[in-house]
């Protein structure tokens, strides 16, 4: 209980305050995205008991550990199949997957593709910090070409994923991208995604000053400045044009919003129709 003269944090109801302080570094973007997610949960007005949050492993994946909901910190890459099991077994739940780029798109990439294809009715929030933060800054499937990391000390020879394109091509019915500084748009987007029926995916660009910024000589504030200055909001942009290139400018916005039945709905219908 807060003392009379102490202000109660507006999200306190949704935070396991006894677990604070959190593990995120100063200047890290994960906490901001996490707050936006909790605000969105509040804004939907839906009973908290009808929410569950699932994370994989990573700094971003610690989200599930701080939210005061039934919350699951699973294994690396497996948040989506865990979430899919929950959703199919109890379709009345709002299932949010909160995890990192490495978790969702390297080790968990196949699960992402298939959940999107199925239009599984879950909300997937990916914190894209362009790196494996938790393990000390190794190259990810999202690290820009030629960037440095703990395992590409001379520059990344590979090309990163265009995540919204992959989501769209796989069958996701809601796809958006924001950065952690666009917190109003982000929260609105999360609310939309939670209310959306079907697979919704939001990529959130977020700084990891410790393990990405430092090696690539991008100061914390400069990263945020890039998020502000080198981005263009363009709703309904062609997903094929969403490659991440700070020099050209990064496109943000909502790119896909399609209404389509979900596997839990379809399954129920098909079973009801059988002889």
């Amino acid at each position: 209980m807060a003392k009379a003269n102490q202000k109660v944090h507006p999200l306190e109801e949704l935070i396991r305050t006894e677990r604070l302080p959190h593990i995120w570094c100063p200047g890290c973007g994960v906490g901001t995205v996490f707050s936006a997610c909790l605000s969105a949960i509040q804004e939907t007005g839906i009973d908290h008991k009808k929410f569950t949050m699932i994370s994989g492993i990573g700094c971003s994946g610690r989200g599930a550990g701080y939210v005061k909901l039934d919350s699951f910190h699973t294994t690396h890459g497996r948040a989506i199949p865990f979430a899919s099991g929950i959703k199919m077994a109890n379709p009345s739940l709002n299932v949010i997957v909160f995890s990192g780029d490495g978790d969702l798109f390297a080790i968990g990439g196949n699960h992402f593709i298939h959940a999107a294809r199925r239009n599984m009715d879950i909300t997937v929030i990916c914190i894209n910090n362009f790196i494996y933060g938790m393990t000390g800054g190794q190259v990810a499937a999202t690290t820009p070409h030629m960037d440095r990391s703990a395992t590409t000390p001379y520059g990344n020879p590979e090309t990163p994923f265009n995540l919204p394109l992959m989501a769209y091509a796989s069958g996701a019915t809601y796809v958006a991208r924001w950065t952690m500084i666009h917190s109003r748009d982000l929260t609105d987007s999360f609310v939309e995604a939670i209310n959306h029926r079907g697979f919704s995916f939001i990529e959130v660009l977020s700084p990891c000053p410790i393990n990405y910024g430092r090696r690539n000589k991008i100061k914390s504030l400069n990263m945020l400045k890039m998020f502000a200055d080198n981005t263009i909001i363009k709703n309904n942009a062609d997903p094929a044009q969403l490659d991440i290139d700070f020099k050209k400018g990064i496109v943000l916005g909502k790119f896909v919003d399609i209404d389509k039945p979900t596997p839990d709905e379809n399954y129920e219908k098909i079973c009801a129709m059988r002889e």
Partner: protein
Amino acid sequence: MKPKVLTGEHFINGDIACAEGAIAAGCTFFGAYPITPATEVAERMSERLPDVCGVFIQMEDEIAAMTSILGAAWTGVKTMTATSGPGFSLMMETVGLSVVTETPCVVVNVQRGGPSTGLPTMGAQADMMQAKWGSHGDYEIIAIAPSSPQEMFDLTIEAFNLSEKYRVPVFIMSDEVVGHMSEKVVIPEAKEIKTIARIKPRGRKDQFKPFQPEENGVPPMPAIGDGYNVHVTGLTHDEQGYPVMSVEAQKDMMGRLLSKIRDNLDDIIRTEEYLLDDADIVIVSYGVSARTAFTAVDMAREMGIRVGLLRLITVWPFPEEMIRDLSKRVKGFVTVEINMGQISREVQRCVGSNVPSYLVGHAGGTVITPDEVINLIKEVFMVTNHHCINK
């Protein structure tokens, strides 16, 4: 639409019987990935689950199949998956998650010859150690070995009951032969089938500790949406379920995960004895090989050799004490299994230097014949130990 329990006499194979056992036990979620010789379990479940308002989903691989059943289990339902060697290997990561988060589930392994892709259509019993040790870290699980389609039905129900009671993954370690052989299976009346329901928490929700055990060492388990706001993690955690990175927390958590099985061996372990009372030589066997062993015992007895059988219905936890006790009064052990020495090593470990212990094994692909068992018994015990015969 068929009823939940298909009471009556059926002529079905082990895989189908296993699926029927699952439905009868109250399983309402199956996460699948096809693989020979376990596919029929999934196919049957896909057909039957809608009859009981259950859900079948074919996932993208066995990692996802196994992970989906853990997620589903936390909604309060009984869940299962079925696979064979290559898929069992992929599931091992999630087996650890099931153990440490104490998420009940039943995993069927209809074993085939390995390693790797091995012998897809031919049986073996060579994943027995993997069932015990396949995921990293120390842990205890329960593994059951059915010897017939009837037992595929009966023991699948048993597997669900043990899984719910102890909140551990329970493995049904079948094999291609039992999975694919058709025999008479008697399914009893629904009211005669004993099923165990998960213990739900009581008391104040805000003071509930999801990993605080009750008397038998097992904590009650709420479902998502019950309002307990549980946090469940694969990290080492305290009774609240919160991660704690310390030597003490690891010791406490591990201690309970092990002891909830080790302290309840009498309740968990099932064995069958055949002519053990006066036996000089004990055959230890399980699953399809136990069928060979029964015949071998009869053949040996006809020849005047006092052989008995200890059939392991539960293979893990291992009935150590029983074998240790037997080793004090018999002349030797023979383990019969379709592998190159797995459970025989456990037997050897328990027997120590008390008496000799041998393996009648096989690299896989076919069953062991009773003659092979008899030949070994004659060779080893009649030559080196002939005084133990017809004393």
